[in-house]
């Protein structure tokens, strides 16, 4: 009962936030609505006792990805009028994609309900069961090759992104921080010892 109330509240806010992403006029507001949507879906996962996924969703998407999004959105000067015009133009494409997703979801639920008995709620996990441990155990044993390949691909993406954007402009005056930090007083100041002059 209590869980059901929570579920419907979170789900309603999630849908509202998703609508907000699409319909808000201000791009910064849209980003904040997206953050709210991530939060609500993470709460739904928490209700399903998938605490690892829920927390990682917040950590990765809200804590890192959306911060960079916000950065970019704040820096560029977006013409609100033009963005609003796009909404109508891209609406058919969006509707097609949304329709496809609904069909997929319905298929999944229908297939499940044919082969399994539908349960009222999420299956409760046994006492002392750790989501994180279970995920780690599977990732590092059964799927270790796939996991390693994914890691290498990500590393490759990092290197590629850096090498694509790194460029040295000619005639740019940059400080060599290592040499600045390594500088000692005796490199800059020469202390000369000399005899005091005799009084004339």
């Amino acid at each position: 009962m209590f869980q059901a109330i929570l579920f419907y509240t979170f789900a309603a806010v999630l849908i509202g936030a998703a609508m907000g992403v699409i319909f808000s006029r201000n791009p910064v507001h849209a980003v904040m609505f997206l953050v709210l949507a991530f939060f609500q879906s993470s709460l739904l996962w928490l209700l399903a006792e998938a605490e690892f996924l829920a927390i990682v969703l917040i950590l990765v998407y809200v804590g890192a990805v959306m911060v960079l999004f916000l950065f970019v959105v704040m820096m560029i000067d977006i013409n609100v009028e033009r963005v609003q015009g796009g909404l109508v133009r891209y609406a058919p494409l969006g509707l097609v994609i949304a329709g496809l997703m609904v069909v997929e979801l319905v298929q999944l639920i229908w297939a499940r309900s044919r082969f399994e008995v539908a349960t009222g709620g999420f299956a409760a996990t046994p006492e002392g069961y750790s989501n994180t441990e279970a995920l780690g155990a599977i990732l590092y044993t059964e799927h270790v090759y796939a996991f390693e390949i994914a890691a290498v691909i990500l590393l490759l993406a990092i290197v590629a992104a850096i090498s694509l954007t790194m460029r040295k402009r000619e005639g740019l005056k940059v400080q060599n921080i290592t040499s600045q930090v390594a500088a000692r007083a005796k490199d800059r100041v020469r202390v000369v010892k000399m005899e005091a002059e005799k009084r004339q």
Partner: protein
Amino acid sequence: MGSLIPQFALDLWNGLPVELQTVVTHVFKIVIVLLPLILAVAFSTYFERKIIGYMQRRIGPNRVGPLGLGQPFADVIKLLIKEVVIPTRSNRFLFLIAPLLSLIPAFATWAVIPLNDTFVIADINAGLLYVLALTSLGVYGVILAGWATNSKYAFLGAMRSAAQIVAYEIAMGFALVGVLMAGGSLNLGDIVRAQEGGITSWFWLPLLPLFVVYFISGVAETNRAPFDVAEGESEIVAGFHVEYSGVAFALFFLAEYANMLLISALTSIFFLGGWASPFEGLTFLGDGSFLREPSLMWLCLKIAFFMFVFFWLRATFPRYRYDQIMRLGWKVFIPVTLVWIAVEALMAWLQVGPWAA
């Protein structure tokens, strides 16, 4: 217990539905943690001014109340009765909600912090992940404040602070990976329990580089001196909170000090054995000596020590230059943590330190 609480109150309590009982006990626990926390924030502003005063051969606040102890309350009342000015052409809603967004994560993280062996509001399996996730949310308050103000100075401050927080968070995360490897659990209570056995078996010794990196990154995360370029009075006036006044400013202030207390508490828990006593192994102190017992007192002392270090740093060091901050974060701290994680793996393999069988 039975004699202390009258029978009708017990009947009333037992008559409540179970869900309501849970809600009431949790709210009670939260209040027990939050009230002392807010008081601690108020008095840490006083101690900061006193400590820095003495370090600079001044007396510090001594006018309000005995020893100036009423100063924090005088400050709070002053801020509460000031007008909150909202700049024209600012984004009113985000402008007002930004201070809350920086305060809420700082308080919410205390939910998983164990105060002693038994008391913790939420004893969850993935406590360390929860801490990481919530500390990464504090940046929203700063960014939104800077943007919603509609001022160039505030925006510059917000950009600086956001880049800084994102950079140092990675080093912090890697340092916590090291703690996780040593503690063998994501639960903060279990991490403290893994450090039993006195000051030499705490994690600060085998994880010394990570300990240093974690605390300095914590200083950078809270935008405190010498990493306070986000406020940089000499360059960008006051950074992201330049247009905030009254209660809204007080909330930012509260969030900053709550974050400092949080970083101090986390550092004590991860590296200095949390509530454990440093003299646990000293048998000559006697069996029942309170000095050997693990208790909340030790955690408070450790937090107080790190708060002192925060103030000490502020009184000692000049502000970092911005590009050097970035260099320190990306090119020094992250490699150091990566190397030490490899060293830790070696230590675990050779079974030395906390991994001794």
